[in-house]
């Protein structure tokens, strides 16, 4: 071929190769441009997805961090609050008896007509409203009466006094004053009655309702009766316990198996099997680990359902392969000359590994840990199967209490019927979850660069 080209001899078609090549060059270069731009388009598509996803979550979720609050005065009316003075523990009374007596008093207090107090509180700032009691209560979150009751139980001397108070607006009222509901819908399709809507508008115009940063998203637990005050604290604690279990179990076990497989294991059938097995476990769907947890930890060992301990165990098994594989690759990156030098100076294999090789892989292990924890933090499906999607109304005090987790809370909130309110709430929870992941990864990157610089 090259001979022909060089000599410029004619081909059977009557043209020489040079001409042929020149003729086709335009087409080939066009193809080149097309191919290259296809690659560029693919990149842009992928980047575009990242941008769209983040911008949608931010635009939907950020407004949920500011919620409508009503600032007013509350009068603890002695005519309404029942129960009398709080009982005192007498000498010789058993704790159980006193607890029962105190609970009976609290029950009496709770049975008081707190809604009447809430109503009066709202009427104080809007005296000329034509709204009825029902309409007034509809714009205040239903947990307001518990808030007032708790204030009173905490400090019974409030009886007969007037103190300033901030009441959270209900989810419907929040939607309305944020303008998320169409204002021209007919009455029967509105969540709030006409007088409730007018009252909310009036309070907003008077400056009694303001938008304050919703700290209760971080301090409250989930709530069904009062969706406006639902928060992430319970889910956060559940996730925290699970991550603690994962770090305590998965990291030592994962590093130990990686060290064994990479540094000590003889190359034989058995270690081959472990190797294939670990690679395969890394690709087993997470939901299968959930089935394992349900069948083994809950059904066979009888561990409690919905407990972060069980969730943590399932997530540990799930993240182990990730940590093992990442640790192995960082062990492999340690130059063999280092091992040979240590062995040559008379160190045993254990000493070589633990004194010289492993310290060098510390940044790698750290990264592996954080990748594993981030993966575990975002996992939802296996947790649904071990009952962590139960509605839990208090913050878990130990890893054995029922709890839920951040991603599961997102799952529960997106299914809430009050779409207008919970779409934003869910996005807010997603922002918190993604924020945690970004923080984790940022920590990993910072620590790694620092540790690597030191060497």
């Amino acid at each position: 071929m090259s001979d022909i080209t060089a000599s410029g001899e004619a081909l059977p078609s009557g043209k020489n190769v040079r001409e042929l090549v020149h003729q086709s060059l335009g087409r080939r270069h066009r193809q080149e441009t097309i191919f290259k731009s296809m690659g560029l388009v693919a990149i842009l598509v992928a980047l575009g997805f990242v941008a769209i996803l983040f911008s949608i979550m931010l635009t939907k979720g950020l407004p949920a961090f500011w919620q409508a609050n009503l600032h007013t005065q509350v009068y603890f009316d002695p005519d309404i609050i029942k129960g009398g003075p709080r009982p005192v523990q007498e000498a010789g009374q058993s704790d159980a008896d006193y607890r029962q007596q105190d609970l009976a008093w609290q029950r009496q207090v709770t049975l008081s007509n707190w809604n009447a107090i809430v109503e009066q509180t709202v009427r104080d700032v809007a005296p000329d409203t034509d709204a009825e009691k029902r309409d007034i209560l509809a714009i205040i979150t239903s947990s307001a009466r518990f808030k007032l009751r708790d204030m009173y139980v905490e400090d019974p001397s409030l009886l007969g006094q007037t103190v300033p108070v901030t009441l959270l607006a209900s989810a419907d009222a929040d939607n309305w004053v944020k303008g998320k509901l169409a204002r021209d819908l007919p009455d029967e399709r509105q969540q709030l009655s006409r007088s409730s809507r007018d009252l909310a508008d009036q309070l907003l115009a008077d400056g009694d309702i303001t938008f304050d940063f919703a700290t209760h998203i971080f301090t409250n637990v989930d709530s069904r009766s009062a969706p406006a005050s639902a928060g992430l604290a319970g889910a956060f604690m559940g996730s925290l316990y699970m991550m603690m279990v994962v770090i305590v179990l998965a990291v030592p076990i994962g590093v130990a198996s990686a060290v064994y497989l990479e540094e000590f294991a003889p190359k034989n059938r058995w270690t081959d099997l472990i190797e294939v097995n670990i690679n395969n476990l890394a690709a087993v769907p997470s939901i299968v680990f959930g089935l394992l947890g349900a069948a083994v930890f809950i059904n066979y060992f009888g561990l409690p359902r919905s407990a972060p301990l069980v969730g943590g165990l399932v997530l540990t098994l799930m993240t182990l392969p990730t940590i093992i594989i990442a640790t192995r690759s960082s062990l492999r990156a340690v130059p063999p000359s280092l091992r040979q030098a240590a062995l040559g100076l008379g160190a045993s294999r254990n000493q070589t590994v633990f004194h010289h090789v492993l310290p060098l892989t510390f940044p790698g292990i750290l990264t592996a840990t954080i990748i594993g924890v981030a993966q575990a933090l975002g996992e939802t499906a296996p947790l649904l199967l071990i009952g962590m999607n139960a509605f839990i109304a208090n913050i878990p005090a130990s890893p054995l209490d029922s709890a839920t987790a951040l991603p599961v809370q997102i799952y529960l909130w997106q299914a809430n019927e009050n779409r207008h309110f919970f779409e934003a709430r869910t996005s807010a929870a997603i922002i918190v979850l993604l924020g945690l992941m970004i923080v984790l990864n940022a920590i990993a990157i910072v620590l790694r660069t620092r540790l690597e610089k030191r060497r």
Partner: protein
Amino acid sequence: MNALFIAALLLVLLGLSYQMGWSRSKKLAAAEGESMHSRPVYHGAFVAIWALLPALVVFGLWALFARSASDNYIISQLPPETSSLAQGEVTSAIQRVKSIASGFGVVGQADPVEAKAAEAYNQFRTLITLGVLAAAAGMGLLGLLWARSRIAKRFRARNEVELAIRIGLIACSAIAILTTLGIALSLIADALQFFSFVQPLDFFFGTSWNPRFQSTGSDAVGEYGLLPLLWGTIMVSGIAMLVAIPVGLMSAIYLSQYADYRVRNVVKPIIEVLAGIPTIVYGFFALVTVGPFLSSAGDLIGIDIRATSALTAGVVMGIMIIPFISSLSEDILHQVPNAMRDGSLGLGATKSETIVNVLVPAALPGIVGAVLLATSRAIGETMIVVLAAGNSPVLRLNPAEPVSTVTVTIVNQLTGDADFTSPQSLVAFALGLTLFAMTLLLNVVALYIVRRFREQYE
């Protein structure tokens, strides 16, 4: 028993035994006038291992049997007719005695029998606690003394300690095997139980999915045809691959062959962010954004697309999978020897011709492996499909209609109730077994192909 107290005991034992081994070794070395086989730290560690191990065994046994032992003791203290009561009443009787014993008291007046039982129980507990502590400490001391007595000039403490460490390491790597075994055994056991209700043939080849809930009919079993779910799974993951393969592969090619390294260093991590986003976030994204968007886009061109459909779930799953395909393919393209690329370019081929005719064919096995791995990921993906596929287990060809998949059905059947006896919840394990088998097959084939490919160019 107080966990702090146990921890303190173990710590004391650890410190004491380590110190004793260490000082004994030092003393011997000084007396003999020449060096020992092992350094003092190894003697210390050796003694510590032998002191802690027996103590831990004692505590482990106690932890296993403590609860049943104390319950049995309380029952033996209560009148004999208590043990013949229903399970719940026995438990509450035991609970009453325990709360009297703890000093918290019960509501109302405690029964004299109960008070007596509580007193006896308190004594029993003190006794047992002391006994266990003494046993643990005694066993620990025995181990300590035995280990200490073995220390001699020629004693190879380092080898022993290293052996113990080695055993610990092996035990840790066996956990991975145990996990696989656990998955396989538990799935098979529960699936077999399910097949005692439903014929395997009806399950694997049934075309109708309708598991009635037990409340609707006393012994209604329902229909459990796998095919609608399997078809849903295949359709959703097929759509996902249609999105992910072109975008992922072309990005990999562009990044590895065309892009400046500075561009690459910025773009690659951003694309990999897609892999780190929790799947529930994708699910929500599909539900509130992609679904309505596809639906209104369908309206524009006159096609009826449901907001929650196989298409919605598939497209979003495809986005999720892009980084898997792109980073795996990029690695694989890097492994094709440069000589092949340079040869093609040297013969006058354009870059795109080199890529299409030389690089991709050479890397094809690896790319196929990557695609298979990504497919297995798509098949096992749960949350996106739970939220966005519409959950309708009917055999339909139209991807714009809602579907259900194997994973969604596992979640639906096993969420909520905890009973492992009805076919309605056991079917989750049969489905899980099917899923596990499918992904296992894909993974093993894919890993084999990728491995062969790597060896080819190494």
